């Protein structure tokens, strides 16, 4: 087990955004969290990586780093691609003295090669396309060899080919570092291409848990509404 979430609750302004949810993700497994906008998907990721505190419940993670790939990449725009990737190696207390500059340079090149972007070390984020920025943020996330990777809508806003490329990277990274991964998405292609299991959130609760194939079967009113993107069903869009 790499991540276990037990009875997690988070409230914002008297509204329970996450309402008593529990799930597990094993090493080498990809869990997709799906649901309509505002269902609390990104909040779950922020709770797991400690960016916001939970009200109650438990989040148990294995020893090691948690990495996160942000929806809009969140690259440091004042730093070059190489400095972005090397950021944790240079700034983190426990890693700062572990590598010399030559080693850091080699690691950066190696990570960029892994995401298919060799030779762009000196470019700045503003000089890259959305898909390239996303891949650089992948490289930055895995530089500390994490055993848990969280992806917040990794394919949102990308063209279909870039989305496929990103989805392939998510799967290859899973194989490469055997990390437990959580992918927050509402894109069907990302779910079917990457996920081993899927949970669907609505109103802060898990309303479906199963495999991508089971999701596509549309056996429940929730899965049917989600897959067909229908406005009719148990899930109501909030104004």
């Amino acid at each position: 087990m790499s991540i276990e979430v037990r009875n997690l609750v988070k409230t914002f302004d008297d509204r329970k955004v996450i309402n008593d949810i529990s799930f597990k993700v094993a090493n080498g497994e990809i869990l997709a969290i799906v649901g309509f906008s505002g269902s609390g998907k990104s909040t779950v990721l922020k709770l797991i990586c400690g960016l916001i505190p939970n009200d109650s419940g438990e989040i148990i993670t294995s020893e090691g780093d948690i990495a996160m790939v942000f929806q809009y990449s969140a690259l440091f725009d004042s730093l070059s691609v190489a400095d972005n990737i090397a950021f944790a190696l240079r700034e983190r207390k426990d890693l700062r003295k572990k590598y010399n500059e030559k080693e850091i340079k080699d690691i950066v090149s190696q990570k960029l090669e892994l995401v298919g972007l060799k030779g762009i070390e000196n470019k700045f984020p503003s000089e890259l396309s959305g898909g390239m920025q996303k891949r650089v943020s992948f490289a930055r996330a895995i530089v500390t060899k994490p055993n848990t990777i969280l992806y917040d809508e990794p394919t949102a806003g990308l063209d279909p080919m870039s989305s496929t490329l990103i989805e392939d990277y998510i799967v290859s990274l899973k194989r490469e570092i055997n990390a437990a991964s959580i992918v927050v998405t509402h894109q069907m292609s990302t779910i079917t291409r990457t996920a081993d299991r899927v949970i669907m959130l609505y109103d802060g609760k898990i309303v479906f848990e199963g495999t991508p194939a089971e999701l596509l079967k549309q056996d429940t009113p929730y899965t049917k509404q989600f897959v067909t993107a229908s406005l009719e069903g148990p899930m109501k869009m909030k104004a």
Partner: protein
Amino acid sequence: MITLQKYLRQSATYKVFSQLFILFADFLDTLGKIAQLGFHVLKCILKGEIEFKELLAQCDRFGVSSLPITLSIVGMTSIIVASQVAHEMVKQGGGNFVGMLMTILIVREVGAIMSGFAITSMIGSSLASELATMRVTEQVDAIDVLGVDSIRYLFVPRVLSGAIMMPFVVILASVVGVLLGAVTSDMFAGLTYRAYFDSAGLGLYMKDLSVCILKAIVFGATISLISCTCGYFASGGAKGVGLATTKAVVWSFIAIVVWDMIFAVLFFF
């Protein structure tokens, strides 16, 4: 039927008081955040957790790039004061004290205060908008997720550069102010440079210079700390960045005046 509770909620008095309460709560919240982050920064500095490369870059930004505007503002203020004062004092037979008055005024007050306002407008606003943009684009979250202390990384070089560079800026601005005071007194009141500079050093003591430098250190650190804090806790999109920047400028202006009052009471009463 309208209930008493509903009536009270609709009344203008209720609205004014509730608005005042919200403002007061926000004031306490911001003050608490500034104090909390200030202690965190101090702890990091005492532990020696300082990025010297970043510190130098911030010193360049704080001290060097702000210099033209700061010198202009302090210089022009000195010209305005000298043009008002010199002529009148010469007319009343107090021409021999113009230099002394101008020097005391500039070293004790005008140099530090006007530099503080200029630095707030130029550097404070830029620090706040920079950090606010980083916050709303999740760059600050990314720093934290990568296991780096975002307050140490973002605040320490900026606050320290403020404390280091502000004294140089204030001293330079004060020198320019005193010199322009002499030129203005000569032009507007026919006061010779000799008469001006003979009296200039009379009322100035070591204490004035020490307090001026101490005040500059406090002003510089305060402007940076307030601006960084307002930016760090920004929320929302472009509007949030704008609000954080405005808040940083308003709070820094108020803090400069409050600090100045404290210094005046502590050292010159």
